């Protein structure tokens, strides 16, 4: 399942990059379905990066400082919710600058 989510996420990024909003409705719907299935998908793009975040695998470019931000998300963070318990299913893969 994580692979399917990753592919949808990649597709979403690609469409956004091409400024193509025509399929947003369908992508939203797919994300909604993932959510009903108990997956919480987090795109941490633009967030300040802290070393304490164990939900992402960061590739830190240059010096890590308070100003370091997540500038690119190669794979999203995926949590799985089962019996009301949240579990990390996939670490995000990000570039931090």
């Amino acid at each position: 399942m994580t692979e399917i989510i990753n592919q949808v996420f990649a597709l979403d990024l690609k469409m956004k990059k091409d400024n193509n909003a025509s399929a947003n409705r369908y992508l939203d719907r797919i994300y909604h379905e993932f959510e009903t299935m108990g997956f919480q998908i987090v795109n941490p793009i633009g967030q300040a990066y802290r070393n304490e975040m164990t939900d992402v695998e960061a590739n830190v470019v240059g010096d890590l400082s308070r100003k370091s931000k997540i500038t690119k998300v190669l794979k999203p963070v995926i949590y799985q919710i089962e019996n009301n318990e949240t579990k990390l299913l996939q670490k995000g893969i990000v570039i931090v600058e």
Partner: protein
Amino acid sequence: MKTINFAIDLGTTNSLIAKYDDGNIKIYNNPLGLKQTLPSCIAFRGNRTVIGDKALDYLEKDAENICMLFKRKMGTQDTYFVPSIAKEMSSIELSSLILKELKNFVNDEDTLNSVVITIPASFDTIQSNATKKAGYMAGFKEVVLLQEPIAACLAFANSSKLDVTDKQNWIVYDFGGGTFDVALVEVNDRELKVTDNLGDNYLGGADFDNLIVEKLIVPFIEEKLGLTNLWKDLKSKTSSFKGLYFELLKIAEEAKKELSHYDETEIELDIDINGENFYEQLLVKRDEFEALISPKVEQTITFIQDVIKNNQLLNSQIERVILIGGSTYVPLIKRRIADAIGVEVNSTIDPTSAVVHGAAYYAGSKPATVSEVVKKEEELTEADAIGFKLFYEQNTRDLEELITGKVNASEVHSFRIMRKDGGYDSGVKQLTEATFSEFVPLLEGRLNQFKIQLLSAALDVLKVIDTVAINQGSYNVQGQPLPNDICMEVDDLDASATRLEKVFAKGSILPLKKKIYKTASKTILRQSDSNLIINIIEGKSKGLPSSGLSIGYIEISGNELEEDLIKGTDIEIEIEVTESRDLKINVFLQSCDQEFENVFSESERSISINKINMEINTILGDVEALIRDTNSEENFEYSHQLETIRVGLIETQIAASLITEDDVSDAKFQLDDKKRKLIQDFDDLTRNKLIAQEIEEYNDTKSSLEYHLNKEENERFQDKYKRIINNEKEVINSGNKYLIRSKIKELDELYDSIIQSSDENFISYFLHMKFVTEFSNQRKAEKLLKQGDDALEKKDYTSLRHIVYGLSALLPDYEKEKQKKFKDNSRTGLG
């Protein structure tokens, strides 16, 4: 006899912990990651110590405060000076920190006193003793060492249930991410012994990734963009290609994995270079990749040949080669070894966990010499004596909250906060004046649970606080809560009625927004008069739709459609309630590709006379039916109450028929209010009764189902049954008859499939049919009953089954009658 059971693979780059449990091996997961492996890497950041994955973050910025690969210096006098804590750290101390972190992987209820730790075959006595010392420093009372190649052989022998009777020579080929080792192991019926080993500490799978970037990807980009010197620029700290090197390494790693399974792979490059987007595909064939890494692989082959030669053996005297280490997934390696040595190459065991796996087998057979009884009680009192106070916001809308704590125990030196879902770890931090405060990130819309450890100066865990939970997003004192549920009216085809579906729960904080996906439950042709109705209602979600206050009502008629709305296609409804309580509804019809948007303010209710009439009609039928029933039960007080409602409804209906749809006075609203009150009364009067009926039916269904489930031949249905009744309590307590009904339906379906799984089950059905007096075709039924008697006598149960089917078809269908009454114009069109 108590055995050691726990084993640790204390690796140069990665470490793992496992447990032997009654013949099975359990490898523990890092609670903070998803991996079983813990990178053997530690970062010292002043008063904070970070161990594992996250320590690697500081590799570039702060290399002097990062300690890794310290296993290579085990047993030497070399120490690592760590500027940020102004302290010399020995390999033993560093290794003990890794071991302590691995202890964290194991559930708190297990006490870990004895452990098996693996060491490379090349370790001498001093290095071995140093490893033992690290183990004792980490708090173990007993440490038993085991050589890694032996552990790998054990893993192989145990998983393949091999029986070795004569003396054999095995080779263990260990090709990891950063190191390479080869060991010659002598195996006989009694023991395993490492006779020789060789290796290279600077040869690993990471070299393959670098080669893909350097030799394939970079030349490709250079050619397409007319660049030069890109490889050098990528690796330079000062270049403008920030981040690109890492991104390309990731892409290369993926390609490497693909090429381990497929003959070719397409590398998709979608990157930014000098501010320009570069989007191209590069096809890489396995041959190309293999040609690239071949020199590195040949180096490892030479090592094997040397080890064989050095021990005066011939290739033919080697029984098998066992592959471990992540890099051995590459098929070329297996092939080349088989070619060069000409023996069986075995890659059946998991290369990353083989060592810890084998070591755990060993630990499971090795008696433990330390007992654990006395110590346990002591620790308990110690932990209880530690006093602490915590301060934090339990409910918040922020994505970050502050947790502050004060500790009243001098032995507590540091703390560590971890989010239980694995998304956050503060690392070990020192207390300042016996207090700590830490901003923790929160996962949106969830209950975030935390675990706080209090640690001693030696980083031993003294106390675990397990009760901290922060609720994100559901509460905020400043926001305005909803006074009632907000619901949408939808069709309930099973019950041939409409019902309410909760959109926002009472008490939710405004503003609120939600998308709901429905399917059309009827077809609406273009230009037809048929309607799709979106009715948003404020009121109890468990009540009848007509008992709530309609706060937004949209009718989309066939005249407004550009295409036919086809039954079964998607309808997307976005509902938003703003802080000022405006309601926005946005409807998108997929099959028409049309969007409708409406904004309602509470002050201007829109009411349809048509709708009032329709609702009264439906309820009136129900009221009258109930009056008939209660009269026959001689429950006169109850029927009197019902009669009052009936009269009220009829009066309202008459009044409604006197106003036109475009009436501008507030008569409409008065009528609507009156109607709602009457229906609410009816609802209150009947709801409990109906729910009690549903629960009773649920229990009946359950017990008849259980009777069948207890039969041996039906055991396979148990799992499904357990799944259905899993959330039984919530459903029963919900007081929502639709939920209970849907549970009953699920049970019924299971019941049917059990019955239909065996022909003999139809006997009781048939006997039951014999007592039915009313069939739609009596003559036909009698004929079938006679045939059934014959079949029963002949024990021909297959025929009996078909006869029962035939008889069921002749039963009068009450449901169908009810469905007929659920006319098109009383439906919303939302399934």
